[in-house]
């Protein structure tokens, strides 16, 4: 059966060598792309498509309407349909975008977007054909006055190229501009904290400017209506900051630039480099400012690289970032949680390793969160569960790997007792609360290709802590405000109850009339009620007892 093994030589070995297509590679290593198991695979397919839809709508400045349907076909096989009202995709690009790995517009472009790699949706198509053998069906309508274009396609893994099975223009396709994709996949549908349901819920929180309709595999329909009629600002693209560039990339950029001189190259191809800085770099590197960048030797690039590190530069601009904003985050969270109190904060942008990033945090407390499933107000004990933490990176929910994520670590690193919440074992705070944390960045440092958790850079953790502390503080003020009012009533009642007791005991002790003392005490209370229940007592010093 098996081929006989014999000793090989350099010659025979050479014959076995071949190029491997990137599709073959990821076909074999699909767990790297989030298709580890059927449950996660179902989520990944939905996620990649929805992320693309939201990105496209925002870039086209269209308020998004997104529809997701998961329909069970047979055991562990589902048809997943995602439709948006975005700009659509031009005919020629459809096959490449959906059936070619490593093809896209978002790769390394110095701008914040949900997708980053140009790999996700084609991977979903690959996974679909791998597990069910079915092609992907794409509808696209870039112009609302023209017909809808429909394509059925597969991915040819040996060549990493699309293979079109069917293609036609439909009269009665999409009603408006947009894109629709249908995939049949093997998967598993569960309702847990890693489920598609939860992903949709968290997506709705982060996108209050979107209409989202969702029908899950159990046939239950959810409909999140738009609560904000304004799109978040579109992030801007920036050029790389010199302090975040590695030597090999610097060399490649120098050799591929359109600039004629090194000085120009530094000014044109990077941000935050003016003519003074550029000349300073050249001087330090011992390179003539008018040298041709394409002719730089490796040794010269190396010197330039060292010189760059020595020149002080402004931090990169941060208008490339598009946080959702305090108001919209509050809207989204309030809408979804029906909480009694919601507060959000958007911090100013900061930089790690030459990459700008920005943190947002929000907290929701009480209201429906303190109620049981049947809608009753839950007991104090029942609500003393760990708060729910929801994590976002570039507006995408992160559902897996919670414990190893920098966002989680930062939230756990806050001393919650200071804000009136229990924190048993130093973990998440306990109470009827939802905490949301969002990191946006031109280059989010995921811990793995699955984009499930954020790497623990100290700069990032510190920023998150500051953001979370801020919302925690406002929650604390709110809660203690409520408690104060309750306390006042309690205090007055307390004295009213104690007065007859004291009077009674004194009467026994002295033989004097109870009524007389009771009257005196009541009189004093009435006159001084504000002072007594506000400040707690008569004098500051003795009250310390």
């Amino acid at each position, binding site marked *: 059966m098996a081929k006989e093994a014999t000793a090989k030589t350099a010659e025979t070995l050479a014959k076995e060598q071949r190029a491997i297509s990137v599709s073959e590679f990821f076909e074999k290593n699909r767990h790297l792309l989030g298709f580890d198991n059927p449950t996660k695979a179902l989520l990944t397919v939905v996620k990649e498509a929805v992320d693309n839809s939201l990105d496209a709508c925002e870039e086209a400045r269209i308020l998004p309407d997104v529809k997701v349907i998961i329909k069970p076909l047979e055991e562990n096989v589902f048809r997943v349909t995602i439709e948006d009202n975005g700009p659509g995709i031009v005919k020629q690009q459809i096959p490449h975008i959906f059936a070619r790995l490593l093809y896209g517009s978002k790769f390394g472009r110095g701008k914040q977007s949900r997708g980053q790699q140009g790999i996700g949706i084609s991977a979903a198509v690959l996974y679909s054909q791998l597990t069910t053998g079915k092609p992907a069906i794409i509808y696209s309508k870039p112009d609302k006055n023209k017909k809808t274009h429909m394509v059925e396609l597969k991915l040819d893994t040996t060549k990493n190229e699309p293979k079109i099975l069917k293609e036609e223009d439909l009269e009665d396709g999409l009603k408006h501009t947009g894109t629709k994709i249908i995939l049949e996949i093997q998967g598993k549908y569960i309702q847990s904290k890693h489920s598609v349901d939860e992903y949709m819920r968290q997506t709705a929180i982060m996108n209050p400017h979107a209409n989202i309709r969702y029908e899950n595999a159990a046939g239950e329909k959810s409909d999140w209506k738009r609560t904000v009629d304004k799109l978040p600002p579109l992030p801007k693209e920036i050029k790389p900051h010199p302090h975040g560039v590695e030597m090999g990339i610097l060399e490649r950029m120098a050799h591929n630039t359109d600039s004629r001189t090194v000085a120009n190259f530094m000014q044109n191809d990077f941000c935050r480099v003016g003519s003074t800085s550029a000349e300073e770099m050249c001087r330090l590197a011992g390179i003539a400012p008018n040298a041709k960048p394409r002719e730089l030797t490796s040794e010269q690039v190396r010197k330039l690289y060292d010189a760059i590190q020595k020149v002080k530069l402004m931090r990169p601009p941060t208008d490339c970032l598009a946080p959702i904003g305090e108001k919209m985050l509050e809207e989204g969270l309030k809408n979804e949680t029906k909480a009694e109190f919601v507060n959000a904060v958007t911090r100013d942008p900061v930089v790690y390793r030459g990459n700008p990033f920005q943190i947002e945090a929000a907290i929701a407390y009480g209201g429906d969160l303190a109620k049981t499933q049947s809608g009753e107000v839950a007991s104090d004990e029942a609500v003393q569960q760990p708060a729910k933490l929801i994590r976002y990176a570039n507006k995408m929910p992160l559902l897996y790997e919670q414990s190893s994520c920098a966002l989680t670590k930062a939230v756990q690193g806050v001393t919650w007792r200071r804000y009136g919440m229990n924190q048993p074992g130093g973990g998440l705070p306990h109470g009827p609360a939802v905490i949301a944390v969002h990191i946006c960045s031109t280059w989010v440092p995921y811990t793995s290709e699955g984009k499930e958790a954020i790497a623990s850079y100290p700069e990032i953790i510190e920023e998150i802590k500051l953001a979370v502390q801020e919302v925690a503080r406002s929650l604390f003020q709110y809660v203690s405000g409520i408690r104060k009012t309750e306390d006042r009533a309690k205090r007055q009642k307390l*004295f009213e109850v104690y007065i007859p007791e004291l009077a009674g005991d004194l009467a*026994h002790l002295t033989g004097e009339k109870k009524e007389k003392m009771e009257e*005196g005490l009541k009189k*004093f209370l009435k006159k001084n009620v504000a002072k007594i229940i506000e400040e707690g007592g008569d004098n500051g010093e*003795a*009250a310390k007892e």
Partner: protein
Amino acid sequence: MKKKLTAFGKTIATQAAAAENPTMDVPIRALSNIKYDKGTGLITMGEKTAKRFFFNIAHVKKFVQTVAVARVSKGLSEENKSMSLRQVFYALRRTLPGTNIDIVDEQTESDAAVEDLELMTDALREQLRINANKSGSVAGKVVIEDRGDTIDWSKLGSGGWSVPSNVESIKFKKIEAKFVVYMEKAAMWERLNEDKFWEKHNCIIISSQGQATRGIRRLLQRLSTDHNLPIYVLTDFDPWGFYIYSVLKFGSISLAHISERLAIPKAKFLGLSADDVERYGLGRHKIKFKDVDHTRLKQIEKYAWFKDNKEWQRQFEMMKKMSAKVELDAIVSKGISFISEKYLPDKIKEKDWLE
């Protein structure tokens, strides 16, 4: 006593009737208000007081509790009866109408109220007719009168007289004994009683179980102060044993206000000392220290009354080095009656004690 309590109530009642904020001055029972008086050799209480107001959210509960205790105490006086602290707690308990608030929730609260009242009326708890625990036995060449009975401590067989929680009313009719041996263990007392130690050496033997009760402390104090008998203390060689001695001799922090009525400045520590452990070869019965023992020892060696006492510091050092305790019972390994035939007579004769 009744008068004092009525007077205490009058002040407050007057304020109440006059529509003022009722107040009382409570001496502060914190370490900051405690002093060690080298002259008398006693722990005493300073002058600091705190004002306690009825109309103060932080004070009101304690205020009401203190008055309630005064009321119960006055009732006891009138009926000529007494109660234990636990019983006072229950006598105080009542739920305020229309609430789930009780006058007292824990016995610690009523205990504190009793102590406050002692301070404010300058009365012993026993005078307030509130008793602590009853424990301990006594035997020796003494005749007393108590509640009309004449009791000869030398004619009580193997049991001895059971020491009551309150010894204020006993009268010493005849004291032949020349000294007192107090020990923390009843088994040792039975040993000495069986050996008729008190008869042979003309003395009194008293035991409790563990820390001496107030009844025993008062008894020892009266024998020391009123009748000038030397008091010898026998405890285990451990921080707890040292503490028992410390409380007997100097008084305790929580009862500093009545040190002069409880403490026995002339008490002498007869063992076990670190030297006894060595001298009598008890080293092999060492029981290793636990963390709590180390902590206790560290507290004790810093006490103002031990701080400058070289002899005691030497003991603490040696104990620290051993990092172990030795029980008094271990001495039985030298012989059944070694304690009464050799250890005690030798130590007393050689004045081999610590002060």
